[in-house]
């Protein structure tokens, strides 16, 4: 509890004890009024002050003002009807304060538990300088410095391990609980926790550019962006409060006047009392607080599971998605190719690999990387010139004075070489040398172990259509599609075609669509889809920029999980909207017909809010499959 909360707590206890004692004291007349007023002031003085200040500033209809009017009204009633019963006045304000305290504790607790999830910000770095260690703030460390991270400490900045063999816990960033081993020369990410032995790290980024800072910024911005439900509540609150206040005024004036006209006693006091109850019930706080809180907790819980959702409106859209579109390489498959064989070639596999790897030496495509890795004796770069990457075709380069083209059938056609088809399933890389066909290399990729399960789960979550878009050849694409039971597959696509396919699917009116890609080549599609999901976002700025949802590791099973989190969040949002609105309106109706007293009104105000907050906090727990 904060100091402020403790102070109110103290006042509540003192006032409660005195209040109970008062019931047994034989005080009468003025003395009873004075004693009651004293107790009243102990609990209510800050509310009275605030409402006076609000009144001076022209803010008539805030909660403090309503409570002041309601409780003072009850005092006046006690004096007027001669009952000398001031208990209700004290009780109203006492319960209001208890409710406010409870609410404030609940909110700060949930705030803490959510921000604890995001508490990955490192506080210090051990900077090494000529063998001496100094502890500095992470934002003072320049690029290229050596920092030392002891076991159990957070890695404060991105860098490359220089010395030390250890393992790091990436769970704060990825949700992945298996530690990742780190050896010299390997990249390490800030925000991870070093586990086994001290690591010496050469930093490659400043603190402001480091992964941990970027992720924190993202999460913060994510919770700043408002969803449609939140906007609805904001607009609703703006209309609701004046309408209810107007209704209260009517309730206080209209029935007595009608009664007077009809020749009956006006009963001003009764109707004033009902109007006061009306005002107490009216605060829209339950909605205004619990809806954003649900989204906040949902995004926090997803972050904990290694799923970064960049705004609450994406939670909304993801929950409604009915079409799932996937990229193949690196998304459903591992994206790591193994060279299997060379066919129809006058060269040996090794020679062919040497030429292909040389031509592909500047490309970052997964196929190129695997060719380079498979090549045991790479050619020196002095032998390679004029490298050109042709989007959707392949690469062309001059190697040892020969024009080497490496790519698909279309490229072969363009080169005037006749490509021979392959009878094996796999990705086929055709090679032509000086416009003559020189055979093809067969490489194969394997499915990620969780892909099939993820797709089956998506179907059971109500995804109507699963589609795969790939630049790869028909045979491979269809074999993958069969194995994963995908509904539709489009192959041999250029990046631009993928955008067109996605647009067509969006026009088909099947439902909201999400696209899952690796974020590097698929940026335009990620941006175009209703929700763009990037896989393996950790460390890739492009993915974090382009996507709406980032899966931090590259596990496809996180996609159905993200959907379940979004659905649960939306379910709770709907529950809260319906519960809060119906509870309020029921109470308002009861109050208007004189069936509710002040105690009931306080419950309708504070009780509903507390129930909604408790319900909202449930979104923090990630739903199990």
């Amino acid at each position, binding site marked *: 509890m904060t100091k402020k909360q403790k102070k109110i707590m103290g006042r509540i206890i003192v006032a409660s004890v005195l209040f109970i004692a008062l019931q047994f004291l034989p005080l009468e007349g003025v003395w009873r009024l004075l004693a009651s007023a004293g107790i009243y002031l102990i609990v209510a003085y800050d509310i009275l002050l*605030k409402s006076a*200040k*609000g009144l001076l*500033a*022209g*803010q008539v209809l*805030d*909660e403090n003002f309503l409570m002041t009017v309601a409780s003072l009204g009850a005092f006046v009633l006690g004096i007027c009807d001669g009952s000398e019963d001031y208990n209700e006045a004290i009780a109203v304000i006492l319960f209001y304060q208890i409710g*406010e305290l409870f609410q*404030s504790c609940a*909110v700060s607790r*949930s*705030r803490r538990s*959510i*921000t604890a999830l995001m508490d990955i910000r490192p506080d210090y770095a051990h900077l090494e300088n000529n063998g001496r260690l100094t502890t500095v703030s992470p934002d003072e460390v320049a690029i290229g410095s050596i920092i030392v991270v002891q076991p159990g400490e957070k890695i404060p900045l991105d860098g490359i391990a220089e010395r030390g063999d250890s393992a790091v816990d990436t769970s704060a960033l990825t949700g992945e609980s298996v530690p990742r081993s780190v050896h010299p020369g390997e990249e390490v990410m800030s925000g991870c926790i070093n586990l086994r032995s001290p690591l010496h790290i050469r930093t490659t980024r400043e603190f402001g550019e480091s992964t941990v800072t970027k992720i924190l910024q993202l999460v*913060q911005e994510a*919770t*700043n962006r408002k969803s449609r439900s939140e906007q609805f509540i*904001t607009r609703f*609150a*703006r209309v609701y409060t004046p309408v209810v206040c107007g209704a209260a005024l009517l309730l206080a004036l209209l029935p007595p006047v009608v009664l007077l006209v009809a020749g009956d006693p006006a009963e001003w006091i009764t109707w004033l009392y009902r109007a006061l109850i009306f005002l107490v019930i009216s*605060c*829209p*706080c339950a909605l*205004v*607080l619990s809806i*954003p*809180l649900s989204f*906040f907790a949902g995004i926090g819980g997803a972050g904990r599971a290694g799923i970064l959702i960049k705004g609450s409106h994406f939670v909304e859209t993801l929950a409604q998605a009915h079409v799932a579109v996937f990229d193949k390489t690196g998304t459903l498959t591992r994206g790591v190719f193994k060279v299997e064989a060379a066919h129809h070639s006058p060269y040996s596999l090794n020679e062919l690999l040497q030429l292909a790897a040389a031509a592909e030496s500047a490309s970052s495509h997964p196929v190129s990387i695997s060719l380079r890795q498979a090549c045991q004796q790479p050619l020196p770069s002095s032998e390679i010139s004029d490298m050109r990457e042709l989007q959707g075709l392949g690469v062309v380069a001059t190697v040892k004075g020969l024009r080497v083209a490496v790519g698909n059938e279309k490229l072969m056609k363009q080169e005037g070489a006749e490509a021979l088809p392959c009878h094996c399933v796999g990705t086929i890389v055709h090679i032509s040398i000086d416009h003559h066909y020189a055979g093809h290399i067969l490489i194969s990729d394997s499915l990620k172990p969780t892909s099939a399960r993820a797709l089956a789960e998506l179907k059971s979550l109500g995804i109507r259509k699963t589609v795969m878009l790939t630049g790869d050849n028909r045979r491979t694409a269809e074999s993958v599609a069969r194995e994963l039971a995908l509904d539709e597959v489009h192959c041999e696509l250029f990046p631009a075609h993928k955008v067109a396919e996605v647009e067509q699917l969006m026009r088909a009116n099947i439902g909201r669509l999400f696209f899952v890609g690796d974020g590097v080549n698929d940026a335009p599609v990620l941006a175009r889809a209703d929700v763009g999901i990037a896989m393996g976002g950790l460390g890739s700025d492009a993915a974090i920029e382009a996507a709406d949802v980032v899966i931090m590791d590259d596990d496809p099973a996180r996609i159905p999980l993200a959907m379940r989190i979004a659905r649960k969040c939306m379910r709770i949002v709907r529950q809260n909207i319906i519960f809060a609105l119906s509870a309020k309106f029921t109470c308002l109706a009861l109050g208007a017909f004189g069936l509710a007293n002040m105690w009931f009104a306080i419950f309708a105000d504070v009780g509903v809010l507390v129930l909604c907050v408790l319900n909202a906090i449930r979104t923090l727990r990630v739903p199990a499959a």
Partner: protein
Amino acid sequence: MKKTCEIEVDCANCALKMERATRAVEGVKGAVINFFLQQMTVEFEEGADIKAVMAAVVKACKRVESDCEISC
């Protein structure tokens, strides 16, 4: 130009009112209050005198919610 300030406010509806009040201040292009992080992000119009605008923002917020704190 954007600026993020730490704020202290007790109720969500008050935060909403402060947000609305801030947006109405001259020189403010947009404002978002994150009640849970207790942060306010104010975006200024180009060429606005940030210090003067912030002073006006604080004043506007205090007017709708006397019990709030804003520190930048």
